[in-house]
């Protein structure tokens, strides 16, 4: 640093090179120690994300190399293909990892996760986007200052409380009103999940809608457009990438949500994609309910960590996707000549 500064001074004696503020001298020890410590601590988050991946994958990978594990669960293909288990007539997908013959097909868990997540999204995204339209386009400033924190307060409800609510209140209510065959099922879990992700989608969508440049709406109104035309044809399309990012974040949150589905879905590993009233077992609930009872290092333990690795990878990709969508949005607005 000092050498380069000296060289610059020699070259342009009349106009010294600009240096970062507060660095135009040999820094005292306290400054150098502080900077080193801060730089070191800034790496903690990078280190954490790397360690999370390494230590979860580390437990799963031997599954594919250890001969005993191979023998016990039958290889990678066995996790995804149906099999005629002893005592069964046809070949079926079964998740029943404990017992005489451990049966480990991941397909029932994927079906359960997908079913609850998609239902939860169907309930929450339209609701959250509509609410965001109201708060950003119709509410007065004073109403907005009350509504936004109130709806965001919903996001702070711990998921175990939503699980409790789905289990103790919603389940009976829905069984009574809809006449469902069982109290706990995919539908109840999906409604609980929707309560958890709606505030997330709302917050991101509302931010996207409010940050659409006012000039656009003003120009449309000046041309004689009606309010609904401005909202639906100008503001909403302009904010669509932001809303999409919110939905992607909500989807990631939904796939990874544990306590609500663990408590309210009934947890039977059923392969039934289109019946929302049947019980369902998700990837997350499987990890949460089974990890405590397995011996570290055996095949079941490793399969649970494999599920964890898959969750990590899927949410990682969804997160990058959301960032990419938001950046595309920003480029679109900063590329305009007027801004």
């Amino acid at each position, binding site marked *: 640093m000092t050498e380069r500064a000296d060289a610059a001074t020699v070259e342009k004696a009349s106009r010294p090179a600009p240096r970062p503020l507060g660095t135009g001298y040999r820094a005292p020890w306290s400054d150098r120690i502080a900077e080193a410590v801060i730089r070191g601590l*800034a790496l903690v988050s*990078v280190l954490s994300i790397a360690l999370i991946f390494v230590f979860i994958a580390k437990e799963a990978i031997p599954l594919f190399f250890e001969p005993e594990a191979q023998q016990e669960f039958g290889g990678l293909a066995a996790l995804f293909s149906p099999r005629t288990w002893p005592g069964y007539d046809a070949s079926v997908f079964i998740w029943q990892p404990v017992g005489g013959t451990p049966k480990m097909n991941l397909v029932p868990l994927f079906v359960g996760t997908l079913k609850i997540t998609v239902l939860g999204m169907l309930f929450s995204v339209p609701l959250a986007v509509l609410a965001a339209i109201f708060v950003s386009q119709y509410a007065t400033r004073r109403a907005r200052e009350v509504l936004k924190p109130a709806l965001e307060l919903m996001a702070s409800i711990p*998921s175990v409380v939503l699980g409790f609510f789905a289990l103790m209140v919603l389940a009976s209510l829905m069984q009574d009103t809809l006449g469902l065959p069982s109290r706990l099922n995919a539908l109840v879990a999906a409604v609980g999940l929707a309560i958890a992700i709606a505030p997330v989608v709302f917050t991101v969508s509302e931010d996207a809608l409010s940050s659409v440049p006012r000039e656009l709406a003003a120009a449309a109104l000046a041309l004689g457009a009606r309010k609904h035309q401005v909202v639906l044809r100008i503001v909403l399309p302009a904010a669509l990438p932001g809303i999409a990012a919110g939905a992607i974040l909500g989807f990631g949150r939904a796939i*990874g949500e544990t306590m609500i589905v663990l408590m309210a879905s009934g947890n039977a590993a059923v392969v039934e994609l289109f019946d929302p009233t049947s019980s369902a077992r998700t990837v997350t609930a499987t990890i949460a309910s089974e990890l405590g009872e397995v011996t570290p290092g055996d095949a079941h333990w490793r399969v649970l960590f494999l599920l964890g690795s898959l969750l990590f990878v899927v949410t990682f990709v969804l997160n990058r996707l959301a960032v990419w969508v938001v950046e595309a949005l920003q480029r679109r607005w900063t590329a305009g000549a007027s801004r």
Partner: protein
Amino acid sequence: MMRGASRTDWVLFALSGSAVALMLLTLVGILVPVFVEGLPRIDLVFLTAQPSADLVGGGIWPAIFGTTLLTLLMTLAVVPAGVATAIYLTEYAPRRSRLATVVRAAVHNLAGVPSIVFGLFGLGFFVLFVGRGLDALLYDPADGPVWGQPAVLWSSLTLAVLTLPVVIVTTEEALRAVPHDLRLASYGLGATRWQTIAQVVLPNARAGILTGVVLAVSRGAGEVAPIIFTGAANFLPYLPTDLRDMYMHLGYHVFALSTQSPNVDLARPTLFATVAVLLTLTFSLNLVAVVLRARTRSRAHAR
């Protein structure tokens, strides 16, 4: 509504308005039953006594104590790392720094990792790798695990990693809100970079940093999935006195009462009361954060 509104205008207004109403109604629908059924069970004994062995009778003091201890330890771990990262990003990182880009991406991804994955990580890394590693180094394996088992220390470190993005993002926002003129004035008086950060920037961002800490505590206090395998206990007749002890936890208590109790109807009042205590805790923490944030924002505007 505006003049000349057509029918479509009204439909959109009514539809979006009812979406807001439905969300608010859901919030009320959660709060009302919890407090109506829960409050009658809450008294001084409930807050200060031990639970009975079936979890139904007695109080929830060990769960309150455990949650407090857990979040306190978590705060001690997460605040230095989180605040330092935010200082690095706003004060030290050069523009278009590649390291800063990587750190930001890591923070962003960390925020999206599912909580159950943190549970796997806490067990695989803290309990089995660090804990068992310490045991292998310091103790005779015949004595059994000392550090290498679920404990309040490992739970709190797991939660510290989980809440790191909350602290970093809020602190960064607070540091950016400190006017650049203040830094210039400090440098103009001959202060060094660290003196400027420690004596000008940080004191001015205090409320914002506190907001981040409060939000992290609120988030950490409510998470259950990461602590199931790293230290939370179903029932413990004593309070944790050591970093290596297990502990009871309000959120875990809610989970245990609602899924593992032999007689659900008998457990119901205690369950609702525990949820009421947990919700009161998280909501009041969030309320503090909202107030702090509003105050920082109005101060920033006043300048």
